[in-house]
């Protein structure tokens, strides 16, 4: 009965069913127009990557006359490959450390009666209220003092620290629901805590771990403020800041910049398409259960 096909019947009459189908057409037209408004700029970005500068200015709406893959090669060699590798490394490391430390914390808080559990929970979750911008200036000094200014480690440490609260929040809510029986059986069989954590709890928490990891990858991949302020060395820049630096370097060779934008956009779109369900679960869990 949930199918919308049944519904017009309640209103009866031929006239209202005509009105309903007109309404349906209008709805679809609006939705398609909106979809085109989303896709068209992205398609434009992709196609402009193949044009020559003359084509871009002469016919900004048109298709490229030939597929100039050399623009993509040029963008790749102008730095995109370097930025891409930096982003992959920083994001991967930040995902590993964030997930590891957050699940360890969530595990001990949900499975054991540890001292100061209440205070520790408030401290960990309260971090969600604090924005990176607010800490920016003291961090500028702190990272220099610690000798991790202008290094990958600076970014990895910050991405981990600022995202532990949210990640603990996600994983903790999930671990609470895991039954104690399997765990107790493992302990009876002589497993220690470390083994219970790795062999029982982590495998059982897999769905939320995947969601949390995807969201952390997305965050680290796109993060801009820290990457802008705490990295000076061009060779260490991640994509969001590197692309900005490239804009200055390609000068007026805009198609190359379009090619660079396309290369940078692809990994996240692919990751999203592959893990759409996990992405959305993570986001909706993060918003609490409406």
């Amino acid at each position, binding site marked *: 009965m949930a199918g919308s096909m049944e519904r017009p019947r309640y209103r009866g009459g031929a006239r209202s069913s005509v009105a309903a189908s007109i309404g349906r057409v209008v709805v679809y037209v609006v939705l398609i127009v909106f979809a085109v408004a989303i896709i068209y700029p992205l398609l434009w970005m992709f196609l402009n990557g193949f044009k020559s500068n003359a084509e871009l200015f002469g016919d900004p709406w048109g298709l490229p006359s030939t597929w100039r893959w050399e623009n993509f090669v040029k963008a790749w060699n102008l730095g995109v490959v370097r930025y891409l590798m930096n982003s992959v490394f920083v994001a991967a490391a930040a995902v590993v450390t964030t997930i590891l430390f957050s699940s360890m914390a969530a595990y001990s808080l949900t499975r054991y009666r540890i001292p100061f559990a209440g205070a520790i929970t408030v401290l960990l979750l309260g971090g969600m209220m604090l924005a990176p911008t607010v800490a920016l*200036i003291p961090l500028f000094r702190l990272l220099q003092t610690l000798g991790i200014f202008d290094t990958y480690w600076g970014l990895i440490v910050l991405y981990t620290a600022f995202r532990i609260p949210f990640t603990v929040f996600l994983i903790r809510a999930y671990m609470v629901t895991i039954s104690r029986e399997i765990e107790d059986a493992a302990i009876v069989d002589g497993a220690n805590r470390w083994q219970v954590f790795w062999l029982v709890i982590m495998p059982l928490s897999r769905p939320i771990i995947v969601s949390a990891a995807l969201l952390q990858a997305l965050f680290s991949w796109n993060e801009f403020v820290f990457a802008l302020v705490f990295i000076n060395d061009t060779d260490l820049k991640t994509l969001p800041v590197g692309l*900005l630096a490239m804009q200055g370097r390609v000068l007026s060779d805009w198609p190359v910049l379009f090619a660079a934008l396309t290369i940078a956009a692809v990994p996240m779109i692919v990751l999203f398409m592959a893990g759409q369900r996990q992405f959305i679960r993570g986001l909706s869990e993060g918003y609490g259960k409406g």
Partner: protein
Amino acid sequence: MPGTSRFGRWSMLLWVAPAVLLLVVFVYYPVVENLRLSLFRWNAFSPSETWVGLDNYRDLTLDPVFWSSLFNNIAYAVVSVIFQVGGGLVLAAVLEELVRGRWKGFFRTVYFVPAVLSLTITGLLFQFMYNPQIGLVNGFLGAVGLDSWKHSWLGESATAIWAIIAMSQWQSIGYVMVLFIVAMQRIPRELYEAAYIDGASRPHAFRSITVPLVREMILLATIITISGAFLVFNEVQVMTAGGPNNSSHTLGTWLYKSAFFNDQMGYAAAIAVVIFIITMVASIVQLFLGRGKAVQY
């Protein structure tokens, strides 16, 4: 039972130690230190600090760019609540109620895609979209006969911030829509069946069933959108860097420029305190509404 022995209990603290340590050193300490730094005048290259009391805050109130930045953040918040929360809610309801099968998944995916892209990518893309020579925006206006509406969108003080805000709506509406879809999927179908049998129309069902039942999500999305609007940085830095004539700064970019270009670190710290207070108020309201359920953008 594990963790019941005295030693066992205390040793479990080691499991939370890395998380706690990272948070204390890299999140809590800097936020507190920032409060202190806002009371001093200092710059990046000479570490000596001069106590100035509340002078940085007085300077804030006299700084027209601070006020225009704050205004821009407020504009960002208002427009985003209308388009992302309002528009996202309507889109979600339309997709859930009126669209079936493959189309539903197609629209949902397409609308969400911009949200996974870096703001640098969309920012640079829209810089080209707004470009007076090759941009699609002016091209479109010309094509439909609205030549007089053409602007150098990012190059004029009057339009720059609005052009950035518009890009942001394009990017984020699908994200908020997906949150509403998830909330709506938790509503029992029987409620709608009953309403339709009683002769309710779709708009009526939307008002009397959907909206009340996703109210909590509406409130949360509103608060999070507002709090996000006061943290806007990336897209402004990429598209205009606050120009022309400092007209499109937000608190975030003005903080950045004050600290790292004008070398007024204490002053920038005072801006950070303002951002801190605004986002803190939003978080507290949110905690209140979410009854303890913490939430992040």
